[in-house]
């Protein structure tokens, strides 16, 4: 793209001394305004009439440090849950997306089943799915069917999230222009080959950010399985809270999730930025 007129003045086009002065001034302004705003907020909070009680119930240092090792150890269960579930969700979601897109009347029942699955598992609250699978099925006592709560927790999370993820994949597949399929088919590639080598690689690349977003959602939702008796980080914190009548362990849970999630969010941002840079000037499609 070419724009008429002189190029806009950016810091990079200034002479070095001017640039360093501008940068210094911007940094100083940011620091001063941050100190004033955040410092002011902190002052207001700690001088509020009930601050002492709040601090005692939520931010108790000794309780925090005492509970942290146990929380981190219990978090390992959450990590196993979301890693195993995600490894199942990514292929299952893709399969459902492909089944929904199959052409022709012969595939109508398959399409219908896939659509019903997505509709149902997006509609039903996750906690209900977890509860029914985690308590209901082991309660039937059918021989050969696992009764372990962890197993059903993985199944429930996989079923819930595959429905969402299949919709993400489907949006990605739909975003690839039909002319790409026409080009592939015109060369004699079959529908499946076109999907595998031409459509899906482009579709998946485009939906990596929303997939990571769903992955973050999955990480957080692993705490829901505490309701069927899986002892994970939230359950562990609840036990500690009940023993001490203090909410600090739950603040610890919050911190653990923040520490894990923020790097993933920044990583997603970087992927998006990289994809933008790669599509080059003018954006492309």
């Amino acid at each position, binding site marked *: 793209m070419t724009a008429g007129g002189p190029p806009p003045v950016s810091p990079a086009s200034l002479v070095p001394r001017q640039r360093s002065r501008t940068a210094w001034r911007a940094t100083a302004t940011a620091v001063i305004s941050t100190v004033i705003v955040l410092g002011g907020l902190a002052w207001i909070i700690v001088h509020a009439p009930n601050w002492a009680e709040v601090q005692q119930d939520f931010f108790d240092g000794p309780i925090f440090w005492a509970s942290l090792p146990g929380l981190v150890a219990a978090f390992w269960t959450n990590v196993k849950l979301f890693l195993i579930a995600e490894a199942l969700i990514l292929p299952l979601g893709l399969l459902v997306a492909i089944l929904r897109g199959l052409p022709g009347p012969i595939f109508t029942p398959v399409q219908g089943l896939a659509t019903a699955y997505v509709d149902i598992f997006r509609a039903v609250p996750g906690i209900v799915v977890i509860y029914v699978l985690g308590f209901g099925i082991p309660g039937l006592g059918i021989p050969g069917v696992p009764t372990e709560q962890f197993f059903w927790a993985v199944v429930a999370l996989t079923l819930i999230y595959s429905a969402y993820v299949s919709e993400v994949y489907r949006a990605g597949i739909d975003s690839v222009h039909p*002319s*790409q399929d*026409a*080009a*592939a*088919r*015109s*060369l*004699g*590639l*079959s529908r499946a*080959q076109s999907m595998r*080598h*031409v459509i899906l*690689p*482009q579709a998946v*690349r485009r939906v990596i950010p929303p997939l990571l977003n769903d992955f973050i959602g999955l990480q957080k939702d692993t705490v829901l399985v505490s309701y069927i008796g899986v002892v994970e980080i939230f359950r562990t914190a609840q036990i500690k809270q009940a023993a001490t009548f203090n909410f600090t362990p739950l603040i610890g849970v919050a911190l653990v999730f923040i520490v894990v999630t923020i790097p993933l969010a920044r990583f997603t941002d970087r992927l998006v930025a990289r994809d933008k840079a790669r*599509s*080059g000037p003018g954006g*492309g*499609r």
Partner: protein
Amino acid sequence: MTADALRIEGLHKSFGTLEVLRGIDLVVAEHEVVCLIGASGSGKSTLLRCINLLEPIDAGRIFVEGDEITAAGVHLDRVRRRIGIVFQAYNLFPHMSVLDNVTLAPRKALRVPSARAAAEATELLARFGLADKRDEVPDRLSGGQQQRVAIVRALAMKPDLLLLDEVTSALDPELVAEVLNVIRELAASGMTMVIATHEMGFARDIADRICFLDAGRIIEEGPPEQVLTDPTEPRTRQFLQRIIEAGRL
């Protein structure tokens, strides 16, 4: 006596209530170059897409080298391997290198071993001045280079027939010549081609025969000199008059 490279009989095609092709009859001999001209919407692109079976047809029959490709039970993918098509917007695969664009179909559809497919592709790319672009992604190439890669991609399948759908219409004027020269070379090498084009000068140079399409019918056809300079149909004359006024002939 060999069969015609392409024979079309009574081809009809509608999109909803819009009848785009209203009975096309066309015969193209081996090594013949036929140019389709006509206003936008006259059915040129649709005709090419029907020949390649990218659009299902409503009525009529199409034969390639004597085999009916519109017969029931014909293997679509196998037919398309024999017919190359190059699109106005190139339609290269943006996530692959130039080399992979060219070798994908030979490797996957014809099961040519990778090394041989790569060697053949490299040779074809070199022949069309693209040797140094082999490992680039399409986005880094100029429009003319991209369109030449698209032509090479179609040629890599060794088609019996090549269809070109307004392949220079999306190009900057200074890039048109490099693509037209490639097509001239193909014509000289004996490739059978059906070319939809707005480049009248090019059509006059290269075509053995020109067909003028109007509202879904071929209403005039003949040698370039006759159709372009001494058309018999008033509609053809009208169309060419507008082209001349636009300075395109």
